[in-house]
């Protein structure tokens, strides 16, 4: 499949899953599952930062429209897109990334994926709740929300990864 079509389909699927399934799940304890960071994570290595931020902005806009958050998701996703190349460079191999590989756990190893995605998702989630609550007096609550939501979203991302991985192996 053409790589552009593949990512367009992923964009639509991730946006709809987030808007219609994960936004409607009210678990309690301030847990808010987010899968749209995984979409940004899985975009190809060679994509430059500026288009990456543009895509993140679009994705955030769609999610914000569906969840009445007026720009919170957009801001957090653009931040994540901005930081992605920096984190990739820091944890990447010395000779650079293989352009044939994708930033998934099966191409790059689960250790690398857990480290990089964990860091990016953590920063994204922290920024999201920091802006949403916007009160330093309640820093503990921000941290609690970040850890609970970020942790569960991370597990969810691993699950979705395994689905994508399985469908690839069948082909």
């Amino acid at each position: 499949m053409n790589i552009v079509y593949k990512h367009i389909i992923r964009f639509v699927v991730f946006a709809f899953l987030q808007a219609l399934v994960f936004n409607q799940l009210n678990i309690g304890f301030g847990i808010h599952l987010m899968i749209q960071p995984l979409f940004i994570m899985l975009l190809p290595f060679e994509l430059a930062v500026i288009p990456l931020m543009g895509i993140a902005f679009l994705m955030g806009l769609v999610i914000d429209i569906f969840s009445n958050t007026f720009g919170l998701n957009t801001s957090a996703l653009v931040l994540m897109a901005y930081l992605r190349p920096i984190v990739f460079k820091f944890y990447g191999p010395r000779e650079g990334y293989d352009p044939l590989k994708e930033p998934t756990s099966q191409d790059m190893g689960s250790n690398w994926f857990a480290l990089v995605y964990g860091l990016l998702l953590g920063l994204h989630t922290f920024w999201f709740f920091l802006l949403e609550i916007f009160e330093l007096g309640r820093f503990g609550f921000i941290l609690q929300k970040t850890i609970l939501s970020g942790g569960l979203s991370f597990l969810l991302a691993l699950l979705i990864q395994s689905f994508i991985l399985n469908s690839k192996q069948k082909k």
Partner: protein
Amino acid sequence: MVEKSSLNEGTHSHSTEKKSGRITTFVFMRNLIAFLQRFRIFLVFAVLQILALSWYVTYLSFPRNQYLTTNNNIAIQVLEWEHDLTKHFNLSKNNTQLQWENIYWRKRQPKFMYQLSRGKVKINDTIFEQQYTYIPAEVINSSIDRSNNYFTLNVGRAQGIKRGMGVFCQEGVVGVIHYASAHYSLVKTVLTEDINIDVNIHSKKSDLPGFIKWDGKNARYGTVTGINNDLRIKKWSKVVTRGGSGIFPKGIPVGKVSHTEPIEGQALWKVDILFAADYRRLQRVYVIKNLHIAEQTALEARIPEED
């Protein structure tokens, strides 16, 4: 020759001045371009962030357009499909609730009551006049986990919905209409940080007035502020709307007092309440239309302003 050379020198020095001026602007432009190129990524990042955050900040204070919320056509269509799919999940529970509500009102209808004095016939009641009408609505999109939660309703300006109308469900208060488009509207619920609905806490001697607040943590619990701590509040005393602002009628349930504790340094109670309604599974709500609201606001506009 000498004169000529001096003349030449003069023109030469003049042109170098011009040139140097041109060079400095050129250098400045080149530096600016280099700067922009160097920080291009950061500048794009900053612009996108400013766009997103200004949207967030302006929308929280006043809604300007409907295109960037669930009130636009495409998002609403998708949410309607989703709602069509999931609305039957709580059907039997909702029906039971509606049945109980019907029984409650049927018991209070005069025409179903036994008439004790047969001589009198009630023709037209001139003592009571209807002040509120209610518009039924369904919640088609909701959240409870954010620090400001908005619900989308399937009624809009076509049904007479306006900004500032109250919304409640059978169990209790839900919120206030924040924005109404042609066929849909957005409710600012009690699960937002600055909702400030005026309420009364029932106590034996008198009703204690206060305002609802929500701290963004648990969708089952809220707080009431502005209660003086010289009065005792019993646990599980009822909290109902006061009806002073004309948004809600008097006496719509809000919740029950679950915990009180004194605020340090102030003569006030911190009152925690358990909300009467469970906002996690809310489907059918009523929008309140106050028939006297224009009269009330016109009258209250006559209060002289203090400068």
